[in-house]
């Protein structure tokens, strides 16, 4: 089943996804879309963990648990980030990073 697809294909996909996420994080100006880029980055890391687990150590479960923990951390991070974003929107009436510069000197 996995013989026909080398492990590096998964790594190539996750590498591209990771750097697309970084590109989005650098160019986006809206806080929610920046958060979405972070989700892309975390998801690409998950693909790496799962692929390594399946290809190199199929009898162990480390990749599974790393992936589950990353997902839980991503959920917690999204919840807190969205709470902060809503609070920012309440105070500034905007969630663009250009407009939120009150604490910049």
């Amino acid at each position: 089943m996995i013989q026909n697809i080398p492990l590096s294909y998964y790594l190539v996909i996750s590498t591209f996804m990771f750097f697309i996420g970084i590109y989005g994080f650098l160019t986006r100006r809206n806080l929610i879309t920046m958060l979405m880029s972070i989700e892309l980055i975390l998801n690409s890391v998950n693909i790496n963990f799962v692929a390594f687990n399946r290809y190199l150590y199929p009898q162990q479960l480390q990749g599974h648990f790393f992936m589950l923990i990353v997902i839980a951390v991503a959920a917690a991070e999204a919840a807190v980030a969205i709470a902060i974003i809503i609070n920012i929107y309440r105070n500034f009436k905007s969630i663009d990073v250009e407009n939120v510069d009150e604490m910049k000197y």
Partner: protein
Amino acid sequence: MLNEVMFYLFGAMILTFSVLTVTTRRILRAAVYLLFVLISTAGLYFSLNYNFLAAVQLTVYAGGIVVLIIFSILLTSHLSERAVMAPLKQSIFSALATLAGATLTLMTILRFSFVPNTGVDPQLNITDIGNSMVSYNRDGYALPFEVISVLLLAAMIGAIVVAKKERKLKE
């Protein structure tokens, strides 16, 4: 054969929708593209025969986080609004930096030949995962499980406290 076709299909879907997620100017569409990326990732896990992980990916990521993001988009921006992009110079430099990083990483990855362990074909059932999640033996993961549950509780309380309206300041 079918497996390869599915792999290439999901890979292509992941790459196209990732690019669309970070380039589209409509925020709600970006969230929907992100949903497609996450669902295709679950498809990759299915094709690796990891059904539990794919189910977790679908329920927590595609079901939970994307809905949370869509809710906050609807709360904070108008649907007709177009996202402001970075100035052209900054976009070009970001693209160059990410391309350089991607080439470096790809060169490193492709130079290394991974030898897959094809001897065992694991028939994982969810019982094994659940047992090792709460076991405190050598291969158990009880401590990370507890730590992550405390983290989730703290994040939940923190999110509620941060997003709560402060009534005292209004008076």
